[in-house]
Structures are given as structure tokens and as C-alpha cells.
């Protein structure tokens, strides 16, 4: 599972809704990644844009040597990414960071994600299903067309609920009652979240109340992605103290209990 520099080849790079793209990259040596880890992508052979862009793994196909990403086209880096066509090469550094961890004793897990965060949770769902766990998911987005990976979760057999801002269903108290309902009714042994500060705060509280573990995948502007620059640091609780930890190295996945939500 050691990280390396890879020259991938774009297999597919297609729109999913109006703001997201699904990209498949052939990079046979890079398929050693686990859900929650990320690759650091270089978008120009010149010096602008200079820095790499972190993207979590949306899928891994070991047989075909494919790594998949699902990304929100936001600024110029992701715009350049969106311009790649099949056959183009892509410089990938990774896999990097600490991914999600699943305990084989768990019977069911609940995923609560929003926006691009859904991309990060999808491969976790797949892994959980393969390990025989039940997967419940609450997916949140601004509009229905930004609810990415719903189909994929359905196909996996996950039980999926969706909430959106435009439908007025995504407010925290609504999601809270949905989560309580699931935790009450189903055998959920752990919760996972990604993509929203508000939902992270909520899930931290609910996991704590219910006495179950939780994990969250965080994002932060990154310089190196390798643990050297300390650009991606946030403070976390650990063993009763506050530690500044590197999202790229000690994360991007952290235990929900150690996150200081107000610092996100």
C-alpha cells in the first residue's frame, strides 16, 4: 500500500448532472488504495496551476487497473480536470493518507454525506457490503441533480434516503430525526460522514449519545499532501488534549469523537 507517482491514462471522464464529473483512470500500479484515501493530481505540466489537487477515491477496480474519481467542477483546477478526454495522461500521486476502517464484527453502518462528500463514502459502502454489512445512507445536496452516487448505492443494496435544500428536506433537525429513526430501528454499529460541517457536528453528537463509533473524512487546503508542509493542519482532541494534526497524513479520515467541529 505504498504511495507512488503514477502516469494514469484517462478511460472515461463524463458529466454526472451539471456540476460533477465521473472520471476513470487506468493506473494499474495505483489500485492499492482503500476507501477514504486520496490521490494528489497534477493538472499542468507548466507552473500554473502549480499545486496538486486532492481527490478521494470513488472506486477501485483491481482487475482492470482502474481508479475512479467523482468530482465537483469548482475552480480552475477541476475545470482543467474536466477538460481531459480519454487517452490523455494524468499525473497521480498516491494513494495518500489514512482511509476508513471497518470492523468485521459490525453488522450495519450508516453513511451520512453531502455534496462531493458522497463520492468519498461510496467506495466505503461497497467495501461494507462485500464484508456482509448492511448499509444505510442519508444523502444530502442542494438540488436533486447534485445527489451523486445514489444509483450506485442502490445497486449495492444499500438503503438510501435523499434530502435536498430545494425540497426543504435537508435541514439538520430533519436529518436528525431520520438518523435517530435508523439508529433506533436498525443494527447500526458505526456511522460515517463527509462533506458538511453541520452534518459532522450532528453525527458527532448522535454517535456520542448512542455510544457508537464514528468516522469523518475531512477536507483542507493542501500544500504537499505528504505530511511535510503543515498547511492542512486542524486541531483535534486526543487523549484528553488538543493536538494539531495533519489532514493529509493523520487523516483525512478521523474518529468523529476527536474532531473539534467549530474548528472545521
Amino acid at each position, binding site marked *: 500500500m505504498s504511495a507512488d507517482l503514477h502516469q494514469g491514462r484517462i478511460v472515461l471522464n463524463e458529466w454526472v448532472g451539471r456540476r460533477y464529473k465521473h472520471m476513470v483512470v487506468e493506473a494499474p500500479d495505483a489500485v492499492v488504495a482503500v476507501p477514504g484515501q486520496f490521490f494528489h493530481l497534477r493538472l499542468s505540466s507548466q507552473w500554473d496551476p502549480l499545486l496538486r489537487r486532492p481527490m478521494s477515491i470513488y472506486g477501485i477496480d483491481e482487475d482492470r487497473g482502474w481508479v475512479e474519481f467523482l468530482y465537483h467542477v469548482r475552480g480552475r483546477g477541476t475545470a482543467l480536470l474536466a477538460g481531459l478526454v480519454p487517452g490523455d495522461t494524468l499525473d497521480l500521486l498516491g494513494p495518500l493518507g489514512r482511509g476508513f476502517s471497518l470492523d468485521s464484527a459490525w453488522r450495519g453502518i450508516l453513511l451520512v454525506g453531502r455534496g462531493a462528500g458522497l463520492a468519498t463514502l461510496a467506495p466505503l459502502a461497497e467495501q461494507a457490503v462485500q464484508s456482509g454489512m448492511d448499509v444505510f445512507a442519508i444523502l444530502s445536496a442542494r438540488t436533486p441533480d447534485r445527489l451523486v452516487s445514489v444509483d450506485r448505492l442502490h445497486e449495492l443494496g444499500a438503503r438510501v434516503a435523499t434530502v435536498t435544500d430545494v425540497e426543504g428536506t435537508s435541514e439538520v433537525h430533519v436529518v436528525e430525526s431520520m438518523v435517530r429513526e435508523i439508529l433506533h430501528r436498525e443494527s447500526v454499529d458505526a456511522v460515517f460522514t463527509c462533506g458538511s460541517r453541520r452534518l459532522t457536528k450532528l453525527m458527532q453528537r448522535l454517535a456520542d449519545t448512542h455510544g457508537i463509533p464514528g468516522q469523518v473524512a475531512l477536507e483542507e*487546503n493542501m*500544500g504537499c499532501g505528504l505530511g511535510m508542509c503543515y498547511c492542512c493542519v486542524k486541531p483535534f482532541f486526543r487523549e484528553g488534549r488538543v493536538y494539531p494534526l495533519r489532514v493529509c*497524513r493523520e487523516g483525512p479520515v478521523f474518529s468523529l469523537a476527536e474532531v473539534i467541529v467549530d474548528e472545521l
Partner: protein
Amino acid sequence: MSSDRLSVQVGPLRLKNPVMPASGTFSPDLAEWIDFDQLGALVTKSVTWHPRAGNPGPRCIETPAGMLNAVGIQNKGVENFIIDQLPVYRRWKTPLVVSISGESPEGYARLAHRLTVPGVQTIEVNISCPNLEVGGWSPAMEADGTYRTIRAVREATDLPIWAKLTPNTGDMVSVARAAQEAGADALVVANTLIGMAIDPHTKRPKLGNVTGGLSGPAVKPIVLRMVYQIYPHVNIPIIGCGGISRADDVLEYLLAGARAVQVGTYNFVNPRGMTEIIRDLDEYVEREGLKSITEIVGQANKGRIFSASCSCSRSSES
């Protein structure tokens, strides 16, 4: 790379080759990517006396061909460095340069004294960090502050000391001379340029610390000029640092007058960058048939009219 045609002498220190990392852009984490024994030296992130949590985020922002950082010297303090990190660095044979950052000349001196221990080959005196005070002020902006700090360090340790200068001054030559007079064995030119970015949507500065230090290829023309500017005015070695990403950039710095170089931001773009640059430099020396890479140091200064072209500041001429 069998011979020592890449090796350079920097003050009392002999380096295998002129390429080393820049402070704060390097850590033992990079050992997964390159063999540290191929580097000219290892340079630590700046160490302070007490632990520092660093600045609030975001700590970095990309800019055209560069980046702004405002990390704020997050580190666990000098005692932790000596106990936890020094043994890690001692795994490699490459000379270790420990960068220090203090709050006063006495603070720097105390750090230098404490770090005069086996395993530390050189002290780099970071008097130029723009991320400790909001707005970016640092001692190296003035000749006087530079002199006092380097002098205090000089008196506190027998180790070679490198003064890391700031580019945020109109008077590089006076500052460089002050560092030399105070006893520096070499000058690192330079730290980052103070910069900022504002988010048009939130209408707020993008960095948690408001201002930060600009580094990367964007700044190379400025820092290269400073090396060229200082070169005829000092007789201690200059270590060029700013925007290096290729062997050609290193050659530019050597031609301007640097004896060695530090690579910073480029390590983030290409973690194998430094070793690729060293390989390309060796090819260059081979191709050009040089006995030693030091033959080209300062060559771009040939035929230079020193009095007219050397200084930005009139005052340093008089």
C-alpha cells in the same frame, strides 16, 4: 554520480552536491520518496523554544505559479526536537542543518546553544519568517536587527551558522553585509515575499493569518536578482532559495553567485524533484566537461561594473 564533481564547500561544511531542501518544505516523511543520502544537506523546519500550534487555517493558497503559506512555524519545541526528531535525522549520513526561530537575539542564542549537540552540523538562523507577526515584520528587514541576532547566535555556538535573509527589504546588500560582519558562515537568500489573497465572495482575506509568504516559480526572478546583487559584496557563500524547480534554475542561481541552493515548494509538486535535479546537474557537468560545478559560480557577473550594478540601495554604496 561517482566522482565529487558536484560537491561544494559551504563555509566549513563540505556538501556532496549543492541541492538541499528549504526549511518548512521538508520532513522525514519525504524519505518514502527519495534517498536522503543523495542530498547535499537536510534542513529542518524551523524550531522554536516553546511548542507552537501555528496559525489558524487556511494556511496555504495557490497563486499564479506560486503559493502563499502562513503556517506559523508549528512545531513541538526544541526539547521535543532533540528527543524525538534528531534521532530520526541521524539515520542519514547527510549533514543536518537545524533552522531556528526566536523572539529576540537572546532567544535565538539560547536555541543555538541548546542545539549545539552531536548530530547537528549547522544552525540556520531564520530571521525572516513573515508568518510570526501579522503583517510580516521580521528582524532581517533591517541591517541592525540582522546584525544583533546573528552576533548573539555566533557567540552562543561553535557550529557553522547560516543567516536566512528576507526578500522583503529594499536594502538586501546592507542586510547581507551585516550578517557577514556578525559572523555568519553563509547566507540563505531568501525566505518568502510577503503577500496576500482576498476572496471576492466572502470579501475576507483568504489566509487565516491574513498575510503569508509567497514562494514558488513566480518569485524566482526576484530572488535570483538578489543573489546577483549581493554576490560582489560578500565573501561568504550564498545559498540561493526561491522558485527552483529544474536543474536550469539551479544553474541560474549558481551563475548569479550562489554556491548551493535550497528547493522548497517544488517538493510539493514533485516529491522526487530534488533527486531529479541532482541527476540533471550531474549530466550538465558531464556534458560541459567541468571538473567541478563550482567553476560556474558567479560567472554571470563577468564584466560587471560593480559600483553601478550591485546595489538597490544608494546608502549601501556610500
